[in-house]
């Protein structure tokens, strides 16, 4: 078993009174993202579960076959440099996969679930305990929403209307969890929001312009 981490973890390992107990590790910083294998090693020793209290979905990335990012939604607090580094790594890893391989990758202590739709890769990073198949369904649902909204969506739609892609995503997923399981309701909400936006942007009447109303 490889031990990577602080001496504190080593001490926990030698304290046999802890064996069999559920162990909670507090991670106030996102250093758990970089503390590889601690969680897995401890799970092997302790028969309980080890939770490090991450959000379920850490981030979602959309990128092209050339590795250009088309959308990035982060549900964890990281600096810009960290986000860039992580994106680069994940994109490289996913692009290196061959066509018929399975949609799941293990990376650090997260699972990367990805699927390619035409020229775009949709990629989510979820916590280790998450049900990967339902994450695939979530990705598929998002693609369906985009498809319905744009009418046979293609990559260019997402490039030129990136803010709309974000709005649709935010209407479907909130804080890393799916908020609405009905396609119809999500699309209706976006329609209404778009109408509100149009009204807000509508040119003011001449009278309003010169301040008479």
């Amino acid at each position: 078993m490889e031990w990577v981490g602080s001496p504190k973890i080593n001490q926990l390992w030698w304290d046999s009174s802890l064996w069999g107990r559920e162990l909670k590790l507090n991670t106030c910083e996102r250093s758990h993202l970089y503390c590889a294998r601690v969680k897995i090693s401890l799970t092997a020793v302790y028969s309980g579960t080890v939770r490090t209290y991450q959000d379920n979905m850490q981030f979602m990335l959309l990128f092209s076959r050339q590795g250009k990012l088309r959308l990035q939604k982060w549900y964890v607090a990281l600096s810009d440099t960290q986000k860039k580094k992580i994106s680069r790594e994940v994109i490289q890893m996913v692009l290196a996969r061959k066509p018929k391989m399975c949609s799941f990758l293990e990376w650090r202590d997260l699972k990367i679930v990805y699927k390619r739709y035409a020229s775009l890769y949709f990629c989510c990073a979820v916590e280790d305990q998450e049900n990967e198949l339902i994450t695939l369904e979530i990705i598929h649902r998002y693609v369906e929403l985009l498809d319905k909204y744009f009418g046979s969506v293609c990559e260019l739609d997402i490039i030129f209307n990136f803010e709309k892609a974000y709005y649709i995503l935010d209407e479907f997923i909130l804080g890393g969890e799916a908020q609405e399981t009905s396609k119809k309701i999500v699309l209706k909400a976006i329609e209404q929001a778009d109408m509100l936006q149009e009204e807000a942007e509508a040119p003011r009447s001449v009278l309003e312009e010169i301040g008479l109303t």
Partner: protein
Amino acid sequence: MSPSVCLQEMIRVIRGARTQGEERGVIQRECAAIRAQFRQADSGGRSHNLAKLLYVHMLGYPAHFGQMECVRLIASSKYSEKRIGYLGAMMLLDEKQDASLLITNSIKNDLSHSSQHVQSLALCTLACMGSAEMCRDLAPEIERLLKASNSYIKKKAALCAVHIVRKIPELGEMFTPSAHSLLSEKNHGVLHGAVILITELCERNPDNLKQFRKSVPELVQIMKNLVTSGYSPEHNVAGISDPFLQVRILRLLRILGRNNDAASDAMNDLLAQVATNTDSSKTAGSAVLYETVLTIMDIRSESGLRVLAVNILGRFLLNNDRNIRYISMTSLQKIVQTDHTAVQRHRGTIVDCLKDQDASVKRRALELSLALVSAANIRSMMKELLLFLSTCPPELRSHAASGIFNAAERYAPSQRWHIDTILHVLVTAGGDVRDETVPNLIQLITAASELHCYTVHKLYRALISDIVQQSLVQVACWCIGEYGDLLLKGECEEITPMQVTEDDVLDALETVLQSHMSTPTSRGFALTAIMKLSTRITNNVDRIRSVVSIYGSCIDVELQQRAVEYNALFKKYDHMRYFTMSYCTVILEFGCRSRLSLVLGGRGLKAEHVSIIFDCKDNVYLYWFLLQSVQLQMKAPSGDLIPAQGCGTVTQTVLLSYTNKANLKMRVRLSYSSQGTACQDMVQIDSFPSPAWS
């Protein structure tokens, strides 16, 4: 390009740039224009400018000057400006930045806005990037929204509450009553959020667990309705009614039923029903079935149900879809300890997955195969694992090698098989094994005294065929040095005889010494072996002497030191050489990855020369160490800091004098500080290998 160009036009121009430099130029001009526009507080194109900036940010360019603009736009009264402002806040601000606090007030106001879409923006932003302070401030608002609002807002408020509980677990108490009442909602979105909230509350606080166990019947009923209801177009996915909600409920049931008989009983029927009736031809159905299986295995379910679950996993294992095979192995891994025999039935399929093309599937199959190794199947499993090792992807090699070593150590049917297996691994993947392998193997060989002849012959043959794998080279050198006389005798029962002359052996060792592929450690081993052979061979002592004296001026300090010491043995202490060169290396294992190599000398001497070499993986500060039961004289250690990663060693020489050689025991206590923490370790040696003493 005019500064008021619209977003789409800007995107077009950027994409039209032919080089990176051109793109940078375009973006710099645009950003300058946007910055100027922000400063002007021109109310017309503010949202468009921010949108442009966000696009630029997504391409990877800095956009921090847009942060204050986001704050301003969020406070605007126009919905279009709020919308892009909040999006900008989620993209450009995060909880670590101070600017995020400035939007707390706007969010608070917007949470009570008359338009539900504005409320929605605020809720979304809070759930995405709300810091602990923001959460604390706004928690009462969220709680209010959980109780009195329409379902559109309630579902979002529930997920906001989830975020708040994740950030500040103590606030969970605030949401517990509302969470309970949300379960009676009909709206799927609200139910989904409620179930997630309850799951989060239960995982954080065992008291909540007790309370929400009372809701198990209610949850079971909701689930039943979903499963048995007719076709509902709104929530149907590939024949499954709202798989997202089903999976969530199953997960909550898992947490509630864990370690609790009553709750587990209450959900038994439901789980059996779902497990039997769910159509798993598409991913949605498989997802529900998968979650069901996980729940069955984790609660106190009846044995019949468990068998059903393992059978489902077995079926998944044979599925054509790689994803399904992968998740099947993941779940089998979780239950391999508790339901070992059930999983053993599928061993054949799992071992076949070792040959799959996909690295993820291979990894899962490796983990599972290692867990399935037992005394009964060790020989056949090891064949497969060794085959796997020779073809596996590089990132899995070291894990596979250490797994094989562990399995071999636990279940080796014979010592010879054990040694053969380790040698096989060293030949195939010697570069990926851990450093402890060398001393472990040496210890193993030392203990298997009947096999010394066989081992030294085998290692000699491995050495002359290839000296790339350093761990193999080191063990081979040590072995030849130690048992060289057996090698030269030529006969060995278990291996085809091969005539080996003293020159051959010395040639082999010198090749290692001179090769540029050999690491300093390997060279050290080779030199020591050559020196040891000086007492075991008769004709070529002069050759050894000349080799040793050449290395007396070697650049490598470690090697030079050894050569000089050995040279001294030749010159001044020739009469003692025979005695001191009958070495025996005793390798001791400490915890915390440090290793103590005890090199003992002497046959029939009064004062024993003891050299203790530390080789550690961490930075270790050596304070002192204590030897009991002997009169000792400790010389100063060669250093007091051992660099990390095996980059160096510290040698401390101790002279012992005692009379009762046969009963020498040694206890070594090592006190050190690693990365700032003081540690102690102790090892006792009760008996020393007999060749050391006469």
